[in-house]
């Protein structure tokens, strides 16, 4: 693991990690009405398997106040991990606690925890307002209507709130589910692929909402398989690959690790042989292969250094580069590298 393990335990800069509260001890104030939080979710040696298939393998992490991104390719175990964090799945081994209290078979944790799961559906016969209001009433909030109104305002669905959810677009359904999860102003908010189905404007607004919740001291975790979503929203990233925690820590550190990884490019130019000779003299280039059909394959030890060096080499050699194609740019290859490192 190249990223410091210490990052797992460190709260994001500028955000408080103190003042842990016991779940279920306080009436929840309305969303956005004050600053609250300080709660943390701890996973210790958590594994989950189904028969012979290991979905999550020995994950230890701590979620502190602020926004954390759970990044991983499809099938990596993100949803399984979120289900265990939210008390909807028992770990096969290890413990998941919220402020020291095990979440499995302990419904009072939902006073502190809000969940937007990927599979949850919204009853289509309810209006958006009725759905959120029913959530407020199920939480037995002292002023459910006011809490529902504020939650709907937070997700910018005021105009559509009296329409049946069955008529909503996918993005609107996502937002009304976020409103229902926020109605009791939870200190911990877990969201599974929250931006699915949202258009760019809705996505931006939701990012602002989550960012503000993190700034207010709440512990927000969202899962995604899209690097850019995590990059825009969270300072702390947990990267999960094939059920294992592959990297954990500050986003910039992980990004740097991704940038400085070995890489293979296919390059087409006006003079492939000349360019190949010139590139071989550069340090990050560890191999060059001329393709008989035209073009060359370049192996580099450092993605970032090479992409900066290539234009300079081409200019100095008077070679016109017509095509540069990274051949292993998939997120999976990035994850694979992180696991291997």
């Amino acid at each position, binding site marked *: 693991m190249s990223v410091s393990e210490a990052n797992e335990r460190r709260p994001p800069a500028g955000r408080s990690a103190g003042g842990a509260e016991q779940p*279920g001890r306080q009436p929840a104030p309305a969303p956005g009405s004050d600053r609250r939080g300080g709660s943390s979710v701890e996973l210790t040696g958590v594994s989950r398997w189904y028969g012979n298939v290991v*979905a999550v393998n020995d994950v230890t992490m701590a979620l502190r106040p602020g926004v954390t991104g759970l990044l*991983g390719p*499809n*099938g*990596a*175990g*993100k*949803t*399984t991990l979120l*289900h265990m964090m*939210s008390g*909807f*799945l*028992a770990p096969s081994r290890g413990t998941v606690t919220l402020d020291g209290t095990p979440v499995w*078979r302990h*419904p*009072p*944790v*939902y*006073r502190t*925890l*809000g*969940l937007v*799961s*990927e*599979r*949850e*559906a*919204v*009853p289509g*016969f*309810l209006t958006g307002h009725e*759905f959120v209001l*029913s*959530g407020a*009433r*199920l*939480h037995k909030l002292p002023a459910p209507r006011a809490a529902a109104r504020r939650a709907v305002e937070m997700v910018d669905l005021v105009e559509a709130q009296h329409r049946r959810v069955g008529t909503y677009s996918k993005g609107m359904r996502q937002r009304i589910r976020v409103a*229902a*999860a926020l109605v009791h102003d939870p200190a911990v908010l877990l969201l599974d*692929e929250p931006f699915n189905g949202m258009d760019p404007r809705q996505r931006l607004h939701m990012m602002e909402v989550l960012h503000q919740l993190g700034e207010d001291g709440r512990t927000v975790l969202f*899962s995604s*398989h899209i690097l850019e979503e995590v990059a825009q929203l969270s300072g702390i990233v947990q990267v999960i690959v094939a059920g294992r925690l592959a990297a954990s820590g500050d986003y910039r550190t992980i990004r740097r690790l991704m940038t400085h990884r070995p890489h293979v490019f296919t390059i087409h130019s006006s003079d492939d042989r000349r360019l190949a000779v010139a590139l071989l003299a550069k340090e990050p280039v560890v191999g060059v292969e001329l393709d008989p059909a035209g073009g060359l394959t370049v192996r580099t030890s450092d993605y970032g250094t090479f992409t900066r060096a290539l234009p300079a080499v081409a200019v100095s050699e008077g070679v016109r580069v017509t095509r540069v194609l990274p051949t292993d740019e998939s997120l999976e290859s990035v994850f694979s590298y992180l696991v291997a490192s």
Partner: protein
Amino acid sequence: MINLTIVRLTLRGLFGRRRFLLLLPLPALVVGMALLADLLGATPDEWGQPVLVGLGFAAVLPVLALIVGASVLGSEIDDGTAVHILAKPLPRREIVLSKLLVAVVVTTLAAGTGMLLAGLVSGSGRLGIAVLAGTAVGALAYCALFLALSLLTRRPVLVGLVYVLVWEGLLTNLVSGTRVLSIQHYAVSVAERIDGSGVVTSTVSAPVALAMAVAVTVGATLLAVDRLRSFSLTGDTS
């Protein structure tokens, strides 16, 4: 103990499902058969057992209870809307009891109305009240059982049908000792005890029937509460 928000949500969900609405006319069959038998000159002693027991207690009541009991929570688990209620700091018994109350009341009203009217066709108000009471007892035990089944298996309707058709419909007629484990016989026994005229008869005594109905209801409800505490979200993992 009973959560009115859950009751309201469950009722709206139940009446929004076509499968349930299609079954509502079923109790009219019992009334229709009783009227037909009466018009053809049959006495209540002659049509009481086949219509009220053979059709009402043995078919209409368990089928309605199965659809309603398995739907109140099972359908929400199937379509994923159950998370809305389960991700709340509510004791699981509050959720189960609220769902059970809806299922029992709806089943009793739907099946009991038909049974009451069919009983009244005989000209005996006492018989009407008796079969209504029997229906209520049966609805309670059946709904508790089928609600628990919806948390124990992914195919509660199929398993419930096997119980109703194979166990109650076949085995209890072949092996008399199994009747003490038949909710249908509890319901008939209660009706027989209240009516007292012998129009409907059961081989299970009323005290045993009541005790067993309570045992089934309590046992199934406790099981459902425990299963709901361990409710897991499964499916696609990513």
